[in-house]
């Protein structure tokens, strides 16, 4: 079955460093991947979308890559700040819907 996986362990990063989160998919080939941010008690908020024919997408301090050979997307936050602490969710299209990873909790320490 189609599956999307993210590292379930929290990621602790020192402020100012680059945080890198991983999203792996199996048993299908999505046309695009999306990344969302979710803060406690709130719904997910869209950050970036990358299509299968794009290798990289950037938005301010955020960068997303899409490697169809490795079946993987990487999400980078450069010059990380404590305000970047949140859970980051990866989602991919499947039959005109999204299937979601469980999210990775990112903690940026001052």
């Amino acid at each position, binding site marked *: 079955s189609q599956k*999307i996986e993210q590292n*379930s362990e929290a990621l602790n990063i020192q402020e100012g460093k680059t945080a890198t989160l991983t999203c792996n998919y199996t048993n299908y080939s999505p046309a*695009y991947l*999306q990344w969302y941010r979710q803060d406690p*008690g*709130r*719904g*997910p*908020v*869209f950050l970036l*979308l990358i299509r299968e024919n794009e290798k990289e997408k950037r938005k301010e301090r955020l960068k997303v890559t899409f490697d169809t050979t490795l079946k993987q997307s990487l999400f980078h936050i450069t010059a990380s700040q404590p305000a970047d602490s949140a859970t980051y*969710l990866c*989602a991919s*299209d499947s039959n*005109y*819907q*999204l299937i*979601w*990873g*469980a*999210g990775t909790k990112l903690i940026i320490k001052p």
Partner: protein
Amino acid sequence: EAGVAQSPRYKIIEKRQSVAFWCNPISGHATLYWYQQILGQGPKLLIQFQNNGVVDDSQLPKDRFSAERLKGVDSTLKIQPAKLEDSAVYLCATQTGRQETQYFGPGTRLLVL
């Protein structure tokens, strides 16, 4: 523009009771989703509406869950009777017909005792 509104924000009920959640989408968003998110997991799709028609309800436990979207705008999700395992956050998300991005409400946190 106003975001997706959901109410109530929190609800505590006992098992076997019934509960209803309400969602008001962003104006003009034809597609509406209800998700269930259990702590530590990603959102799980329950039902998808396109205007007031159901596109997919294959993961909706129809023996206890029901949803409707009258007039293609507001939507309600009902659970009757509730079970302990229904404790979760229920998220409503909406989408225009032209974009892949989904816009989420704040969710309703349900605790079944």
